[in-house]
């Protein structure tokens, strides 16, 4: 069977995110939370999920504290659950849209090649930049620069920023050369993969939009 078209995946993802944003009642929020967590375990994505959790939990905790101080504990809890659902569902969606499919889908949606290329290249360079930050951090710590998260060390973080900026500019220059020598600017570019919508894609699109419409109506009465 032909795999689902990336455009269908993008629309399905957009419908899920819209559903999460539209949820207001505690029943909906908790139901969505249960559904998302069940999906993660059923789809065997627990390992990357726990990895992402390390980054998400401090952020949720921060939002919870701020909204608790600004509003009350009930609103803070609801806001935090909604944010958690939003971040984790986005994580789950992107687990199933690899960068090249995302690029293919966006291109088919008439997004300019330059923008799509920028997006996929940025994704490609995330692990590289993470590695770069780690190398710079270790090099500076080896010089006695204290980079532990303490207020008195704030000034020391310049030692991270400087080399990172300089190396990013160097990498950008080299990347431009690499693109140029492989014909980035050529006008008659073809594409290796051509995506076509099939019956299944239309079915998934219609069902997801229908479910979203019913849910929004039930949740907001619109």
């Amino acid at each position, binding site marked *: 069977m032909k795999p689902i078209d990336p455009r269908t995946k993008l629309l399905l993802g957009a419908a899920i995110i819209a559903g999460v944003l539209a949820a207001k009642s505690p029943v909906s929020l908790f139901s969505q939370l249960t559904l998302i967590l069940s999906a993660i375990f059923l789809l065997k994505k627990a390992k990357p999920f726990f990895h992402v959790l390390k980054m998400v939990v401090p952020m949720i905790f921060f939002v919870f504290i701020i909204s608790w101080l600004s509003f009350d504990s009930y609103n803070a809890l609801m806001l935090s659950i909604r944010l958690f659902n939003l971040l984790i569902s986005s994580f789950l969606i992107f687990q199933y849209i690899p960068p090249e499919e995302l690029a293919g889908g966006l291109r088919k949606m008439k997004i300019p090649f330059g923008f799509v290329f920028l997006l996929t290249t940025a994704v490609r360079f995330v692990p590289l930049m993470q590695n770069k930050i780690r190398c710079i951090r270790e090099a*500076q710590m080896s010089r*006695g*620069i204290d980079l532990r998260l303490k207020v008195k060390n704030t000034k020391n973080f310049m030692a991270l920023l400087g080399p990172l900026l*300089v190396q990013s500019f160097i990498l950008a220059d080299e990347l431009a050369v690499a693109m140029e020598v492989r014909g980035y*600017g050529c006008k008659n570019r073809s594409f290796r993969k051509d995506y076509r919508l099939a019956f299944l894609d239309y079915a998934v699109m219609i069902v997801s939009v229908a479910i979203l419409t019913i849910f929004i109506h039930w949740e907001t009465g619109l």
Partner: protein
Amino acid sequence: MGACIQVNNAQYAYPGGRQALKGVDFTITKGEFLFVCGANGSGKSTIGYLLNGLIPHFFGGSFKGSVIVFGSDTRKMSISKLFPHVGLVLQNADAQLFNSSVEDELAFGLESLGLAPKHIEDRIVETAKMLDIEHLLKRPPDKLSGGEKRIAGIASILCIKPSVLILDEPYANLDQQGISKVSRSLKKIHASGLTIVLIEQRVDGYLKDASRCIVVEQGKIIFDGKPGNAQKILVSQGLIPKYPKRTPKNDFPTRTLYRNSEILLSVNQLYCDLNGKNILKNISFDIFKGQSVALLGKNGSGKTTLIKHLNGLYQPKQGKINFNGQCLIGKDPSQIAALVGISFQNPNDQFFQNRVEDELNTGLRMVRKDYQGWLEQICHLFQLQGLLRSSPFKLSEGEKKRVAIASILAMKPQLLILDEPTAGQDGRSKQMLAKILEKLSQEGLTTIVATHDLEFAQAVANRWIILDQGKIVKDGPPVSIG
């Protein structure tokens, strides 16, 4: 054999005025394997940019003379017209690989040519088969080893089927295994009839693969001939390093001489796990005061992981590390920096000040020490006197490396550790580093050099510790290891 590229009196200055080429003339004939070598900053990479039209179309600057590629002047051809004929593989494999998988990498150039999807698939399969990288096609570039990245970069250009393949320092930062892999691929490509232009500063052992050699010095060609005749000029120009001969005083070949000497660093039954993998397994050794040790092993053998344990960057899963009898486990690197100084492979990771002298002072300020006259001594030893007010970012590779090591030594550590100090360095710079290390060793400093450059290890260390798959497999004087 017909000429495919003719370079006539090429003179080039980069925007900003730096004169990189001062009148270069040569012809490349079809099927040749041309080795272009020279020191850092000699203009050899600029020659690569010249041959595929990046100069003058991409870099701008001032260009005089002409480059004729298959009968057409590069001035009159755009890069998009030239790239199917003259392919360039860049030195930085991370920049070269900008797609999310190796097969997408190969497809990119073919898509630029406007080929039909079926042809693109065929070319990907053909190129992958030729370079034995079928198993890598689905992998993202960040999951490749150094050698694999290099071959994927070559494949991304090779699948375009250029007539001339230019490679800018393809052996940089690779261990012997990676170099052999790339070298084998290049021989295969050359045997298929392609013209190869290999731009390198590492000449040791790889020159024999070429059919012709050009030596570039300060923007001029100073030798053009058979590789066999180039040896003399390569030695006289310092491209093949002449390491200092060890003086009897410094040549303490065996560990037994240290029986009565004090132990400076003691590592006992060290284990380390990273991302669920055993990286270090049961590592135990003692380093005695004044010893010069080389930590050897191929890429991924655990050398860098081990040295990161010695200054607190990594904490072991199990085991003990004592320095001068003091336990280092649980301490932050900022507390250990004054005792154990590590200078890592890439000097650019260290620099964040505007001037070299500020870089040198940074470490001292951090460890809150003021050693009278020490900085002057270091500047003299590392020959940095004329560079103190320069920006560290604008220095040559050799100068950057010297500033990076000097800024660590400024903290006056009792143990100096250098991680791959010869990576990206030309013969002259390696020679100079070896001399500096010899002097430091004579003054009693204990040093550990993690490297896969065996000649350099031979020159700077009297004890070799060899790591393989996270285990020490040999430990002793170089002579006995062989």
